[in-house]
């Protein structure tokens, strides 16, 4: 007969194996990023000699060079500007529409909502070709406005879906009270619905912010002048110009990745919610 000790030892061993598996994958996740960070503190001479993860000597001038000479200061501000504008735009436009789809009555409501949802599910792989033509015609190509409007559209459907689902479940009493007090519909949206929707707005903000910060193809097609480029496109151009200067490139990568990692670590609760909610959509 097998004893208690047998089962206990078996349990401990299984637990150890599971942890070994999980830790090895976690290390594989972190290693390239730590290597990128560590290499950004090395120099052209030491990067192929000093192969330790913690550099023998920390050189911070790569960051100075990338920020000033490489123009990353400019690109960083561009990315911040696009991300902030698009997110603010999406929050306003999507929450207005979602509130209407959830609470207000008007002809064509269902058809319009179905259109937004269909757009979320139909892949259009060549759409950037037509967008390029469209922006040319509207004289919005190579302008921040053109890029921002395109990116608002990219995040619209999912955000409307998330917000409408929330509004549908929200109790109506507070809005009724506000209406009796003589509040207009827009007033109710702004003063009652939006403050109540804060948790889901956080998901919308974080999710779209990641999306805009990481976007590459539309920015590549829309912007010709370096002046307007966001970080992702600038990195690719930079790589072409400074092929062999790895420490500088790694500093540029770190500048690009660090804000995202920080935002993710602070807001990961909302990101996990967004992923699970996004999965339900599909």
């Amino acid at each position, binding site marked *: 007969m097998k004893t208690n000790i047998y089962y206990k030892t078996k349990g401990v061993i299984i*637990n150890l194996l599971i*942890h070994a*598996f*999980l830790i090895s*994958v*976690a290390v*594989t*996740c972190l290693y*390239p*990023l730590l*290597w990128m960070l560590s290499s950004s503190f090395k120099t052209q001479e030491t*990067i*192929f000699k000093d192969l330790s993860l913690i550099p023998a000597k920390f050189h911070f001038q790569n960051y100075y060079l990338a920020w000033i000479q490489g123009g990353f200061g400019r690109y960083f501000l561009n990315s911040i500007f696009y991300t902030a504008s698009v997110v603010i735009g999406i929050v306003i436009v999507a929450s*207005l*529409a979602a509130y*209407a*789809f959830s609470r*207000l*009555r*008007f002809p064509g409501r269902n058809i*319009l909502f179905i259109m*937004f949802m269909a757009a979320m599910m139909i*892949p*259009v*792989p*060549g*759409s950037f*070709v*037509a*967008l*390029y*033509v*469209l922006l040319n015609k509207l004289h919005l190509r190579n302008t921040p406005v053109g890029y921002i*409007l395109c990116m608002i*559209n990219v995040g*619209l*459907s999912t955000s*409307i879906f998330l917000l409408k689902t929330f509004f549908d479940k929200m109790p109506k009493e507070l809005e009724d009270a506000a209406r009796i007090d003589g509040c207009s*519909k827009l007033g109710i*949206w702004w003063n009652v619905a939006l403050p109540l929707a804060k948790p889901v707005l956080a998901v919308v903000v974080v999710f779209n912010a*990641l999306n805009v910060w*990481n976007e*590459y193809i539309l920015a590549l097609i829309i912007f010709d002048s370096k002046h307007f480029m966001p970080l*992702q496109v600038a*990195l*690719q151009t930079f*790589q072409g110009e400074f092929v062999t200067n*790895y420490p500088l*490139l790694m500093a540029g*990568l770190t500048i690009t990745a660090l804000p*995202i*990692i920080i935002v*993710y670590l602070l807001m*990961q609760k909302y*990101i*996990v919610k967004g*992923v*699970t909610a996004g*999965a339900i959509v*599909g």
Partner: protein
Amino acid sequence: MKIKSTLENYIFVLPAVAIFTIFYVIPFIWVFQLGLYDWDGILPTKVFVGLGNFKEIIFQDPSWWQAMRNAGYITLIALTFQNILAFLLAWACDREIRLKNFYRVIFFIPPVLSEIVVGMAWRFIINDIDGANIINRTLINIGLPQLAHSWLSDPKTALTTVALVHSWKGFGWGFLIFLAGLQTIPRELYEAVHVDGANAWQSFRKITIPLMIPVIVLVAILTVLGTMQAFVLIISLVQSELAGHTSVPVLRILASMRGSSRFGYACAQGIGFGVILVVISFIQYRFSRRARQIQ
């Protein structure tokens, strides 16, 4: 009064509908229109070629089909290696285990990074013959220096390397969705079969897998749609199409547009590819309903 109120309601959806119409509906229609023309994107004159572009894609464009095969290969690795890894990790985390939240946070770091950052960081790690290349250094250290080479410059290994980096970046998505799915399975079910004398493998086969089929199909559909359309990672990782060895359909569309200035042809490629994607996900969806009915 009623009309005024309805008009007021339209104000709420007006901005969304306007942006959606201009930046989604119109380009969507234009893709179908332009697909029937031969056009360089600049000249005001377009030449109507009917279904000529589509005929050319199907019969005279081997580079397109090579790109499709490449994307299919990457997708196959993502469906098997990446998703099985994600499932095993989720299964390992779906219990009372220490550091569970730590693992969950770490596994989702690669998905939040941009493909440009991931591609360039990995390129730096694996493409030099010596120096910073940890894989090559390990191969040399264990006495296999002949296997060490530039993984991304060699046409034989480039595509598989791309697929593996793609899996590294993507498994966190599947992991989170699988974990959410596993957590909805009632614990009592496991306890019940345990009392009946089932071992871990039997309860995994009889309870976990059947109940997870809808989630597995969902992840499979998302994986196929995401991986077939992935291309930015290849741009940053390989920095070229390696004469077609690492080319994928969206890169071909981009090349038709920017390289050879054939906008009509690029749109036709987009339509063809979009139709294939919709058909694949529809088949997967039907398959999942069949699987659910059998249960």
